[in-house]
């Protein structure tokens, strides 16, 4: 049936929810704003968590960082669930075409044995690094404060599982779906000297409980070293020898990293700009974790890049220091 509504004269009585009107005025809110702001309960909690009886279920005291308004930690991508999944689905469609191209022509399988071994021992262990990052981001999303931050951490958590699976797929394209590369990657991760520093520090992150420190250590410091080191510099060195088949697949990781850095950096920048105390604390964390991660990555970089490793790592660290300076950190 047709609907007869005398829409003339029917004006909305308000344009948005009250908590959004307080922040942005009474105008139509974006879908991002409608979920990102003020949804997490703040007061009148009912019970003491059996697993942390001295704090509330959601509690600002789970980090040493102090914010007047935790909802200042905006995601520049303005992802809400729908925008996030639709974007990732599109990116995956593009990646699928790359994967299909490499698979059909067996571009990774036809590489010389030594190149394949190099690829497997350098990239496949990183699927475990990603899985560690997945668990760490689950910690930030679970124990962080304020929906605007925690929902983005949740998406990042799932992204990291996706990256781990993407790296697994690179392994399978190399070994013809037998899974041998995954077995070898895991052996590298568990036993080879080159990877023990990285694995030790991933486990070290598992026992780091301050969620903002974890954001700094994992998402800012470790990722800013690991991603350029392997998916840019190692990839370039590998391509110089073996052509660009691999680059078509690492490109996805670098694009993801560039996009995600916008969020990671914005969080750090905003929190550091809040107060000199925050800036000092976050700078200290950054220096501490940078030094830890650079030392941990040295053997892995050496195994991946040979005698160029020291120069490459130095370049990666220099780029990181510049970026950190732009975020308002004093290193």
């Amino acid at each position, binding site marked *: *049936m047709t*609907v007869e509504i*005398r829409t003339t004269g*029917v004006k909305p*009585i*308000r344009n948005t*929810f009250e*908590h959004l009107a307080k922040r942005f005025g009474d105008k139509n809110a974006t879908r991002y704003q*409608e*979920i990102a702001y*003020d*949804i*997490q*309960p*703040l007061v*009148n909690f*009912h*019970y*003491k*968590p059996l*697993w942390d009886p001295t704090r509330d279920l959601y509690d600002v005291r789970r980090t040493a960082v102090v914010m007047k308004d935790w909802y200042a930690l905006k995601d520049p991508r303005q992802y809400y*669930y*729908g925008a996030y*999944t*639709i974007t*990732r*689905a*599109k990116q*995956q*469609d593009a990646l699928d075409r790359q994967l299909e191209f490499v*698979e059909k022509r*067996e571009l990774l*399988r036809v*590489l010389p*044995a030594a190149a*394949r071994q190099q690829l497997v021992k350098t990239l496949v262990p990183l699927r*475990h690094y990603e*899985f560690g990052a997945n668990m760490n981001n*689950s910690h930030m*999303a*679970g124990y962080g404060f304020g929906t605007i931050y*925690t*929902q983005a951490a*949740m998406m990042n*958590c*799932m992204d990291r*599982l*996706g990256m781990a699976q*993407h790296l*697994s797929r690179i392994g*399978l394209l190399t070994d*013809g*779906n037998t899974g041998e590369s995954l077995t070898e990657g*895991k052996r590298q*991760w*568990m036993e080879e000297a080159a990877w023990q520093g990285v*694995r030790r520090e991933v*486990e070290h992150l*598992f*026992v780091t409980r301050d969620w903002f420190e974890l954001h700094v250590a994992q998402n800012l410091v470790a990722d800013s070293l690991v991603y350029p080191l392997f998916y840019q510099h190692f990839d370039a060195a590998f391509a110089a020898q073996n052509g660009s088949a691999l680059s078509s697949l690492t490109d996805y990781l670098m694009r993801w990293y560039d996009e995600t850095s916008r969020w990671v950096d914005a969080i750090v920048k905003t929190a550091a700009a809040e107060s000199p105390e925050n800036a000092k604390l976050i700078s200290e964390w950054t220096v501490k974790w940078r030094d830890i991660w650079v030392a941990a990555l040295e053997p892995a970089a050496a195994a991946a890049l040979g005698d160029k490793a020291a120069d490459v790592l130095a370049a990666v660290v220099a780029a990181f220091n510049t970026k950190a300076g732009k975020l308002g950190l004093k290193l």
Partner: protein
Amino acid sequence: MAADGNTKPPKKLSLKENYAMLTRGLDWEPTYEKKEDIFQKIDFEGIKIHDWDKWEDPFRLTMDAYWKYQGEKERKLYAIIDAFQQGNGQFNVTDARYVQALKVFLNGIVELEYASHRGFCMLGREFPGAGPRIAAQMQSIDELRHATTQIHAISQYNKYFEGMENFPYQFDRVWYLSIPKSFFEDACTSGPFEFIVAISFAFEYVLTNLAFMPWMSGAAFNGDMSTVSFGFSAQSDEARHMTLGIEVIKFLLEQDPANVALVQKWIDKWFWRGYRLLALLATMMDYILPKRVMSWGEAWTIYYEENGGALFADLARYGIKPPKYADVTIKEKGRVSHEMWSVFYANRNALGFGIWLPSEEEMDWFSEKYPDTFDKYYRPRYEYWRQLEAEGKPFTCKVLPQLCQTCQWPCLYTEADDATEFVHRESDYKGEIFHFCSDGCKDIFDDEPEKFVHAWMPVNQIYQGNCFLPGVDPTAPDFNPMAEALKFMGLKPGVDGGLFKEHLDAKRWEQWTSRPANIHEGAYTDSVRSTETPTPRAKP
């Protein structure tokens, strides 16, 4: 053709093999840190797990598949929500009375989806096995989806109706919203195993159909395309979550015989907690929806007694018994919605939505659906209250209700075997008396008194003077404690609650649509053309 002479073509992987390969062995046994330092929450409840690898991840979704599948669903859903908003779909629902149900939904349920998201996220960090961690994370982001899409689906209504504009603030403060809030906070503040038994099994698996089917059919019956679209889009997520619920329970029971007693205790507790929470749905189904789908009594028969009966028969081989006090829920099914609506009516000035008495025609429907109880206990009460309304002195409760320390409902229920006697139970803990609405709630308290004494009881807080906005002076001559407490809770006195026929929503609806605000009553205002009969619009 590989360079080293391996000419076998790549192995073709089935979906299941592909999933297994991509996630295979991602986890590892830590050697640089102690496992108990990494997973700190896993031991204190007393559940014994010998082999985490026995946990079958029921979702088996790789992230690429998840993004595509969910992205496609989101595209379709938002296309409908956009069309709904552009076409002023909020005026296509049956009447403005239906919108009162949406307020209960937005103000009560959205925050539960959110709490569920956070709770599962913590499990996604805390379970030592990779399979269960991934499953919990997937459910966590799904629940975030539900909170998000619900807000987006209802956002349009907020622009045209009262009472939804302040939902996060109200959720932390309004006296009856502490019922859903305390429910999920109880689960989230428990250990990870209790949480997953509570939410995945007792709530999602045993009780969710009861929430889902009548609610979504109710939205469809009443022309609410926005909520229906959200609901059916969420349903495929729910199917995954229910699968997780049954996987979890079987996993725990198979891992160690000593787990059975703990799991049984949690089933008993959370079945009762979930049942009390869902009682809100009973009033929605029986009283609020203008066009009804089925009665609460019928829904309980189908979705609990029949489906639940079969489930617990299946679990008997593990030594699991049907939940304690299930028999009481069956005895109560002819009464709960009426008892609750009576309390809502009496306390209507402290509510966030408008309240009405059922019409003659509606009472006849109740007589048919509740032949053993309605005419005997409730019809006379409503007829008397209707008479008082006609005389211009409608019945109101002037004092605040006694709340149950566990479920936080007012102690409004009657004895299982005597509908004329209120249930009132007490426990003495460290010299203080605590009050309960039922034996089920008293048992839960007695098992964990130290936890439940911390409950934030809104009525008690009001009487203690903790529920006034800053700057309010209780010694001022015109001080009105009730009005001030309402303001503190984020309710607008004289706007949000009260009699529906006097409600702004009702007046505006008739002015805007020229249709009656309550299809079961005549027009409330002159805006409805006199030629129009107060019957529902033709069904689509």
